[in-house]
């Protein structure tokens, strides 16, 4: 049996450290752009739905996608207020004030809150992008069954939806451990 080490709790930080910036980029840059594209498609369908094979389905998918993407922007912004680093604390408090007010303890609680809320924003963003890909795919369905190239374009979009689904699955199970995953016994953890 290995001797247990003394608990030495480190600061709570995003892992990897660039994760917060990456996720913020998707919520503040990518999501608004995709929302704009989705709403443009809504306008096109409303103006002339005779050009689409299944306009009602496309409209449903694209509107749901827009709602999800806008929600991801809002939930992401709500989550972001809980993420700050020592530099921010130093800008508002002296070291002594921060210690007396228990700001670092609060920062840990806020970080945990950010991680929870940001996860929801991530899930909603991913749902929005998936729905948008499916909407584009249905928009590409040709009215004429002989339009082979357009069927190919639609098929390619559907294939990209599958790749996206696979990639999302990968991201949601991503581990950064250096050794392969295998259950460990409790007596020593070697």
């Amino acid at each position: 049996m290995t001797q247990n080490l003394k608990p030495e709790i480190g600061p709570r930080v995003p892992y990897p450290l660039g994760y917060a910036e990456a996720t913020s980029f998707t919520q503040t840059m990518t999501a608004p752009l995709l929302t704009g594209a989705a709403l443009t498609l809504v306008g096109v369908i409303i103006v002339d739905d005779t050009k689409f094979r299944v306009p009602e389905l496309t409209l449903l998918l694209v509107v749901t996608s827009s709602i999800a993407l806008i929600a991801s922007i809002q939930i992401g912004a709500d989550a972001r207020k809980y993420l700050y680093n020592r530099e921010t604390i130093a800008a508002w408090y002296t070291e002594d004030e921060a210690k007396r007010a228990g700001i670092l303890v609060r920062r840990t609680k806020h970080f945990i809150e950010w991680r929870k809320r940001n996860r929801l924003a991530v899930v909603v963003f991913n749902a929005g992008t998936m729905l948008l890909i499916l909407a584009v795919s249905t928009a590409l369905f040709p009215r004429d069954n002989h339009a082979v190239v357009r069927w190919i374009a639609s098929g390619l979009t559907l294939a990209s939806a599958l790749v996206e689904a696979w990639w999302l699955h990968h991201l949601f199970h991503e581990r950064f451990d250096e050794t392969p995953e295998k259950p460990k016994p409790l007596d020593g953890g070697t």
Partner: protein
Amino acid sequence: MVLYDVTLPGNGPGTIECPQLQCPATFPNARFSRRDIDKWEEALQVGPEAAKAHLEISGALTMQHMPGCPFRCLPPAVLALCGNEELLAQLKKVGAVLDDCQPSGDSASGPADDA
């Protein structure tokens, strides 16, 4: 890393690190809630077998903790949602139930973030 994350489609939910300063163990940020912690505490109250079974189901045993890491006996939900003081309290609780998880004789150092 940022470039890698934003050029590929999708956005990951993030990762939970083991709170022990030197431990490299990670776990995907799943949808944890306080109910998961309640279930863990219920399992601790039932006894060692139930606690071990809960650890196995929670995925705690798949985390690649460093040898002797005191947090290897806690489920990922506890590592994800508990603040520093609550984590230390959880260590005491699990140490009272599982012999292999008793905390070290040395007193815990103040959490780095609360110092």
